[in-house]
């Protein structure tokens, strides 16, 4: 990185501004050149946003309002599904939010033919995180499984995502009727889910330098009962749990240059951290833009993320992703797709409805921090101590605490009205020009590890074919082995940490990290490796009390 997010270099415009002031300030008509030497002004230290850097022992006066005007004051199960006051106070915006919410939680008529779940809320439980299956025999209901080979190419039969269910699982009382059957859909007429993925865990034991022991669970992904035949050679699997949905409108509004200025691909500052910007195709402009959404930052906007989820996860075609959730080689799926009703347009979902769901996602509020006493504007001392440790152990090198947003433009689909979309969508004031505290740099970082895929039977014997022959992916570390856009098989986007302390309040079964392997925030920290190894070691070297303070701080976010 050419800078470290806070004690950073100066933005060029600011340097210019300072210089021009210095020059004009020397006045005097210029007759005496020798005396007009400019005293070197100390470079003002500003961060990537042009603000005074945050420091380890002083809390910014705005830090308790992480979402700026989009902050909401709920710390119960509604913490991630609440409309900010600026939305509630405007009848129209309130109405669009309500409609978007309805669409978000209600299964559409034309879901499928193959899908991962039936509605947005099916994965984003209570607008929060999904669940890992309760057992190896329970189906994956709020997770995704991405597919690709060792070069990142999609599977010619299965595509780039595995849909475990066929539509009848969600549209008939018989949930099991759409679960995959070995070679069940090869005949081209009967449709089942593509395969049955499940996770088994092996235990990893470790010890802190102070002797305290800990236990992690390392997931092994297994895929059985492929309905459409074998996967391609060198297949890789990336299992991902649905993240909490709020706050994305603010992240969308951070100027791309501010994010890109944090990148340090070759680690020129030698701090071990070499964040890379994920540059991805923006489906609307056709241009390459900064990716910031999804676990590998492959999506450039909230709308692209939403439309992609409708297409890939739920099987709802739309103008942005017009294909049904079938590849050309999946005849049984294509036949089922032809039966869908496609209300009012050639796609399953109209642009107006898409824009409503986009609006809902962009405007979901960010919960206020806990541990702050508003009456006398003081913080819990434990939280202050944890904050200092979070800074001192340099977690902030990737989990960049603060950003500012620019203008949050209206939807590229158009201005919302109840009867249709119109030209010239207005910017969303609540999301514009805000100081926010998401604790992410939105960059890709190599978190270490690698993966191996084998073919095995239930009891671990090697195999090549047959109904009993499963695909098994074992990884060490956080790697998933899947190349996606700019991201390698061991790179991940730094996830935002805001609201993380309320994850289990919103969904008591929720867990952490991209595949839900970490049962606690402490476990999530201990999984950090690769670029973050030294930070993890710094955390581990803390005393037990200090570790708890740091975790308490993270819980207060």
């Amino acid at each position, binding site marked *: 990185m050419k800078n470290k997010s806070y004690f950073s270099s100066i933005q060029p415009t600011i340097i210019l501004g300072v210089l021009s002031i210095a020059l004009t300030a020397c006045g005097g008509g210029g007759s005496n050149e020798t005396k007009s030497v400019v005293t070197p002004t100390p470079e003002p230290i500003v961060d990537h946003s042009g603000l005074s850097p945050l420091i380890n022992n002083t809390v910014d006066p705005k830090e*308790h309002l992480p979402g700026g005007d989009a902050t*909401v*004051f*709920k*710390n119960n*199960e*509604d913490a991630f599904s609440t409309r900010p*006051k600026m939305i*509630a*106070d405007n*009848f*129209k915006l*309130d*109405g*669009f*939010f*309500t*409609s978007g919410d*309805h*669409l978000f*939680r*209600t*299964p*559409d*008529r034309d*879901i499928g033919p193959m899908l991962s*779940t*039936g*509605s947005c*809320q*099916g*994965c984003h*439980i*209570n607008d929060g995180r999904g*669940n890992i299956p309760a057992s190896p025999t329970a189906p994956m*209901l*709020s997770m995704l499984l991405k597919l690709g080979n060792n070069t990142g190419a999609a599977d010619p039969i299965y595509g780039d995502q595995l849909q475990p269910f066929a539509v009848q*699982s*969600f*549209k*008939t*009382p018989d*949930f099991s009727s759409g679960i995959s059957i070995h070679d069940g859909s090869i005949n081209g007429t009967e449709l089942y889910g593509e395969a049955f993925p499940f996770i088994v865990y092996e235990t990893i034991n470790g010890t802190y330098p102070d002797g305290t022991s800990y236990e992690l669970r390392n997931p092994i992904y297994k895929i059985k009962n492929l309905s459409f035949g074998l996967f391609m050679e060198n297949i890789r699997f990336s299992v991902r749990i649905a993240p909490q949905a709020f706050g994305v409108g603010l992240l969308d509004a951070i100027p791309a240059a501010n994010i890109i200025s944090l990148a340090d691909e070759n680690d020129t500052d030698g701090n071990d951290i070499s964040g890379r910007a994920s540059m991805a195709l923006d489906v609307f402009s056709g241009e390459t833009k900064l990716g910031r959404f999804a676990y590998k930052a492959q999506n450039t906007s909230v709308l692209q993320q939403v439309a992609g989820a409708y297409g890939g996860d739920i099987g709802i075609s739309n103008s942005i992703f017009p294909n049904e959730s079938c590849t050309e080689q999946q005849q049984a799926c294509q036949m089922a797709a032809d039966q869908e*009703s496609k*209300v*009012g347009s050639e796609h399953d979902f*109209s642009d*107006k*409805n898409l824009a409503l769901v986009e609006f809902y996602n962009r405007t979901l509020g960010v919960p*206020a*921090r*806990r541990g*702050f006493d*508003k009456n006398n504007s003081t913080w819990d001392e434990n939280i202050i101590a944890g904050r200092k440790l979070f800074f001192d152990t340099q977690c902030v090198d990737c989990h960049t605490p603060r950003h500012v947003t620019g203008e949050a433009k209206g939807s590229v689909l158009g201005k919302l*009205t*109840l*009867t*249709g979309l119109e030209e010239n969508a207005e910017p969303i004031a609540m999301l514009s020009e805000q100081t926010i505290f998401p604790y992410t740099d939105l960059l890709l970082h190599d978190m270490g590890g690698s993966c191996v895929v084998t073919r095995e039977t239930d009891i671990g014997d090697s195999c090549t074919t047959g109904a009993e022959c499963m695909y098994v992916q074992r990884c060490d570390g956080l790697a998933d082995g899947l190349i996606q856009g700019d991201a390698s098989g061991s790179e991940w986007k730094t996830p935002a940490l805001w609201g993380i302390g309320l994850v289990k309040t919103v*969904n008591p079964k929720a867990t952490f990290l991209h595949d839900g392997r970490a049962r606690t925030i402490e476990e999530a920290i201990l999984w950090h490796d690769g670029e973050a190894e030294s930070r993890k070691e710094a955390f581990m070297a803390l005393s037990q009390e200090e570790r708890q303070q740091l975790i308490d701080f993270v819980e207060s976010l």
Partner: protein
Amino acid sequence: MNFNLKKVSVALLMACSLTACVDDGDDGQAGITGENGANGTNGVSTFVTRDDVLKTNANIAYAAYSDSLIAAQSLRTAITTFVALPNEINMKAAKKAWIDSREPYGQTEVYRFRVGPIDALKDDGTIGEEGDGPEGKINAWPLGEAIIDYVAVEVDGDSGPETPANALANNIIANTTDFPTIDAASIAGAFEHGEDERNVTTGYHAVEFLLWGQDLNTDLAGAGTRDSSGGQRPVTDYALDGTCTSGAGNTVTPTTCTRRGQYLTAVADLLIADLEPIVNAWEPVTGTHYKAFITGGDVSLAKILEGMGRLSFGELAGERINIALTTDSQEDEHSCFSDNTHRDIFLNAKGVQNTFNAQYTRIDGEVISGASIYDLLVVGGDHELANSLRGSLEATMSAAAVVDTKAKTGTPFDVLIQEGIEQPNVVAVIKALVKQTDEIEQAIDALGVSAGDIRQDTEEDI
């Protein structure tokens, strides 16, 4: 003098004569060179104050919620009769009682979205925040019908929970293992099972489903052409002899019919139990919310307008009409089992008009009326806005009356929405509601209140 008596009401003259009017021209001595008289109020009493408006609004709330409770008790009586003697006549009477019960309740919904008892009344009798009240238990939709009773494979929309992980094994009526007893407690316990908002097991729509059954359309399987009838539940679904069915022709054990009757009775009891505290909170003089509301000043006035605006736009035009229209889904239709959605639309809109005009006709015919927001606008000098908003509300009612009439003459709402996003009768209601919302916003400005002030969205909660 330029003295136009028509513009000056008697009330104004009285007001002037009582106060120290200097020369407002009423003696006429200055002739046409005298000062112009003040604008009159077109027959509206200048004594109308904000607090009068609050009192009338509270009195109508009490009347409308009382009517809802009275009608729910009549519904319970009809259900008792039907369950004891399940014949066609008694089933028809129970259905009629349900339709009747919706008439006052639909007009109360303008009291939602304003941190009032329906949305915010806590079990301890205090007002909390939106979501603490019994609204969801009373009127949530879409219903989770698949967890209550048998359902057809597919009826234009999904009736299941957000995720099958939240599904209850079997349905409550058939599931004698997990629900050995069906009573108010067991049904209420299953409400939002798994924290899933789609698992709705109580309220008006549960009663509706148990009386009508799913609207299965012409093929009786749910997938065919939509017809002009509501649900097709046969009376034998309640037969206490050996003819008990779960759907026409599907004979099942009599226990199932007994349990279905127990569910219907218990859910009607719950409806009454959930409505009672709302009525109590609005009871004139003694009701906790009544007292707080009528002394609440501008905040209370803002609440009235907030309820009008949010019901008009977000709930009615948006979620209840437009979503059903754009998804063309019977599941997104408010009263999808009885095909009574046209009344929901009409009565919700009527509630907004009632509020503006401060007039409500009780189920026994008594008319309650008093000081209105219309009056307040006129007194404040906003005659044009008062008149324009009155006209907009009337235009909405006339558009809603078209949908109402179409339904009563054989084209119910679920058929009207079928043409996708082009259906003009339905779109007309949406557009009228959007226009009235604009003018409600103007009224908020004109009256100098801020709708936002009613939400105590502060950091105190944290």
